[in-house]
């Protein structure tokens, strides 16, 4: 299981955010926005060869 998991919006059916599990009691939901710092870290994680878990 990856630390990131893609999430679909139930209205649009599109993947619009990614959830980061920091630990068992702490998560972040990160929007796909270029100047969001957590999104930049996610992109760097993907660029490093990692793959997020797919959306349900």
């Amino acid at each position, binding site marked *: 299981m990856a630390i990131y998991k893609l999430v679909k*919006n139930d209205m649009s059916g599109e993947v619009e955010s990614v959830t980061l599990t920091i630990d068992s009691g702490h998560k972040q939901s*990160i929007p796909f926005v270029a100047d969001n710092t957590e999104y930049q870290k996610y992109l760097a994680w993907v660029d490093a060869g990692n793959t997020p878990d797919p959306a349900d």
Partner: protein
Amino acid sequence: MSTLKVDAIRHNSATSDAITTAADGTCTANITSNYSNRSVVYNGAMKIAQRGTNFTGVTATGTFPVDRFKFHVGSLGTWTLSQSTDVPTGQGLSHSIKCDVTTANASPSGTAYARIDQRFEGQDLQRFCKGTANAKNFAVSFWVKSPKTGTHIVQLQDQDNSRNVSKAYTVSSANTWEKKELILPADTTGAFGNDNGGSLFLCFYLAVGTGYQGGTLQTTWGTPVNNTRATGQVNVADSTSNDFYLTGVQMEASSYCSEFEHRSYGDELQRCRRYYQVLVDQAGGTSQKSFAIACAYSSSSMHSTHLLSPMMRTVPTLDYTTGTDYYRAFSNNAQDSFNDFTLVGNSHAHAVDLAVFSNLSVTSGSAVLIRTYNAASKIAFTAEL
């Protein structure tokens, strides 16, 4: 009692008056640096700590012991970071950052480092006129209480143009509050972007490995060279007896440091909320806290919108605690617990769409009241640099 009767006061070498007096008993003074909002630093008095006030076992970068001040550490000990009430006397300051070494590293190597920094948007730095012929000095002042005497380093890191400059200061007495005033030079090269991006880091070093010193300290602006960033920095992390404190941080576009500009709690909180704001926090208490009215889009999902006040720097990240039944939905004379939220893509810097997609059973189309349901329940939004 005597009266000085003059029409003006002017420095010997000046070409204009510093103070002119008028026949009606008033005067006009050319005061250059005591205007309000002269410091670009957020939360310089360390009053605001929305994320918490005590963080133990810190070994990696990312902790904010108070709002806007981020602790960075890599391969350099273990720390407890906190908002402290240990402050210099007589300054009107009530809080400081405390960095307590709990696992020491007496011989940091390579690129090990520990520092506190604050990051600034370029649009808030235009007053420095960086990259122009009119560039202004960076006047940095602060109170520090270090366990080590000797050289400590402050660094400015220009992220837009990959340039930096450092300045050494000396702590004279260990474990004693001292005020430091540093003038870092203006830079006529490399303008800051006039936007919401992170343009400048103001860094206070606590310790560095061999990779960040050895060269001559870079005291003029130039391309970053690792071994010139913090040459001479003492090692604050060399003993578990060590506690490092910082408060009263100010940075002005000026050639001298003015007195610390105090702000009200409310003003400072509102400023910090551009980067981090709490929606709800049960804060260890037993009382559930209501925080949203949602619309059930289906029998297993619901959406609620929340205005962000003020508008955040960018579309924020949703930051929340989770666990079994951490949150509870009330609707149609029934209730159901759930664990997770999602920030939906239609969110923006003014308002967010907070959705629940899992572990939820509600009546489609109904209104739903949402409350916290665990002492540790907390939801916040972050748009930090």
